[in-house]
């Protein structure tokens, strides 16, 4: 579906991404994981053309990303970031319908689509006319997701979409998201630094460290056949306090 070949990126002399190749399979969820600053967001942003690789190429459905086709390719992708990235001057409805309205959809068509999406994302319908600052963090992320799904994109890119939520809301939204991904059979790339989240969502997990991919595979492969001591280190470091308690008691 989407392929990165030999992409690199250096910011002000600091290399964020070393030559990297990665293939994103269709209708599956790929999770990018790794410690903070390892280049996950940069790699994701390359996929939607927010970062232009210094070398290598990004290909989306046999089309190589280039200035001439970026706009139309972006309209076939959905992108969600940590705090939602909602525009404060627009209501939830205005945010979700912004691109559709630019593309000339009638208000009626937008409203109908929004009805489907509120149901899908479990967003309370009466919240549609609220402004972002009048919504809770979880609601904001649901609006952001509706905005990403508005045109029924071929692929969803999510950069730590649950990172700023408190645990209960986070749990609800995790469940909802997974259900949505499965129901729509979407191609998804999700960035997280949480191993539990990665194993919950990911068909394929891509573990990164300092701008390089260390290992790529299923949770079981990472657990049982680590390609590098760092893989085990990273996974062990994420064992929760509760896990270790369980291990010690009775």
């Amino acid at each position, binding site marked *: 579906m989407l392929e990165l070949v030999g992409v690199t990126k250096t910011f002000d002399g600091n290399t964020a991404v070393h030559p990297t190749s990665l293939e994103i399979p269709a209708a599956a969820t790929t999770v990018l994981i790794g410690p903070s600053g390892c280049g996950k967001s940069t790699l994701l942003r390359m996929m939607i053309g927010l970062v232009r690789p210094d070398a290598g190429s990004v290909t989306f459905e046999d089309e190589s990303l280039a200035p001439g086709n970026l706009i139309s390719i*972006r309209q*076939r*992708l959905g*992108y969600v*970031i940590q705090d939602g990235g*909602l*525009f404060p*001057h*627009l209501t939830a409805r205005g945010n979700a319908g912004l*691109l559709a309205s630019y593309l000339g959809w009638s208000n009626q068509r937008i409203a109908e689509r929004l009805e489907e999406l509120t149901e899908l994302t479990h967003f309370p319908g009466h919240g549609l006319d609220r402004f972002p600052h009048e919504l809770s963090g979880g609601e904001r992320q649901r609006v952001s997701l509706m905005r990403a799904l508005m045109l029924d994109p071929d692929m969803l890119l999510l950069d730590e979409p649950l990172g700023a939520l408190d645990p209960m809301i986070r749990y609800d939204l995790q469940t909802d998201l997974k259900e949505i991904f499965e129901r729509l059979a979407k191609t998804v790339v999700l960035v997280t630094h949480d191993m539990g989240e990665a194993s919950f969502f990911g068909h394929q997990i891509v573990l990164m460290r300092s701008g390089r991919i260390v290992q790529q595979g299923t949770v079981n492969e990472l657990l049982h056949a680590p390609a590098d001591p760092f893989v085990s280190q990273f996974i062990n470091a994420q064992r929760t306090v509760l896990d270790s308690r369980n291990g010690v008691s009775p």
Partner: protein
Amino acid sequence: MKRGQGLIIALLVCAAGVAAWWLLPRADTIQVGSKAFTESVVLGDTLVQVLEEAGFEARHDRAEMQGQLAWLALNNGEIDLYIEYTGTLTEELLIDLDIQSDAQLDAALAERGLKRGPALGFHNNYALGMREAAADELGIRAISDLARHPELRIRFSTAFMARNDCWPTLRVRYNLPQQDVRGIEHNLAYTALANGSCDVTDVYTTDGQIEQLNLRVLEDDLGHFPAYEAFVLHRADLEERYPGASEALAQLSGQIDETRMTKLNAAVQYEGRQPAEAAASFLSDVLGGTYTAKVESKTEQLVRNAWEHLWLVAVSLGAAIVMALPLGVAAAKLPHFGQVILAGVGIVQTIPSLALLAFMIPLLGTGVQPAIVALFLYSLLPIVRNTATGLHSIPPSLRDSAIALGLPAKARLWRVELPMATRSILAGIKISAVINVGTAALGGFVGAGGFGQPIVTGLSRVDKDMIIWQGAVPASILALAVQGIFELAERRLVPKGLRSKPSG
């Protein structure tokens, strides 16, 4: 943003319309001008009434012009006529030509498309004056008589002390022996004369004070002072454009002698008559017929000045908004060009506003245009800077979100970036508007009207009440009102979602 866009377009259309209206010459009206002293204003009103009596449309909108502005306005064709003095032309305005004869003067005027009309009959020369009683007692009738009285205390206006055609040469010419000679402000010299603390001062031969203080004007028996003969100075094509105008003006020829002019000046300066009233009663006496003084009440004046002031502000601010918004966007989007833009409009702001107005005169003449252009330039910086700042302060994550959505640059600008910058942009416009209202008061110095007019007039008449109540106070109130209006507009125009701070 729909509402904001509509507002901007409405502003544009208004600004263009108003600008066109102001800039079109009003063809069938004769424009009379005057300089910023009582006599000139009275005579300006006299010209208007004579022309109106003869059936012409005439207006005295460009009254009380400072310094050489009346001369400039006539040369530019902004006005058609005003009262000038021969000495002012030969000793000041055309001094470089070293004019020695009437023929030379007429030739020099013809070269500029100007023509001398009828002389009114009086000279407003420099002269020396004494109290009538004191002069009688000492038997002084002419300047040469002063040579016999070395003990006299003399107080001259500072200009008279300094001008080469005045005291420095007068003293030599008449061989005057007085030792107690000092420079002092002109009005103070009259006061000193009135209370007996000096004996002689310089006067203009038609000063209202001559009548008021009962002064004797000493005869210039050696003919030292240049002649300042009052006459109508008009555009050479006046008769061609308004056939019969010359004939109407010719009625004034020789009708006003020094005594009459002095009385007219005193009537305005000391009896509280309006210049137009004084002119009307004089004309009825001398020429017969009915002359009507269109005297504005204080309220009418206030209202007219307010409208003129608002036009200046509306046109210049409207144009500034139209120009500054794209400049602000460019400044935000194009880093290098942006620096140039911000530096450019910043430099304009460092020019003192009065100097900026003065720069405009050689380019645009006097009146409304130079004021509007100066105000326009002055209003650019706050709007450009606030637009650029507003766009810059949009969080990168939101800018990226708009890009990632697949909106092209133009749609991002209109649908996301400008609306998010509304608060900052409106604040910039508000700052510009308030500065503009204050600065527009300086328009009075170039004859642009508005609340600056009473300030300028009040300054030249030393009329504190006029400066404060007709000029400064209403201008301040207008500035506050404009600020209030923009604050209301902010409430309506700033998108609702931006009005209260996001809760974190």
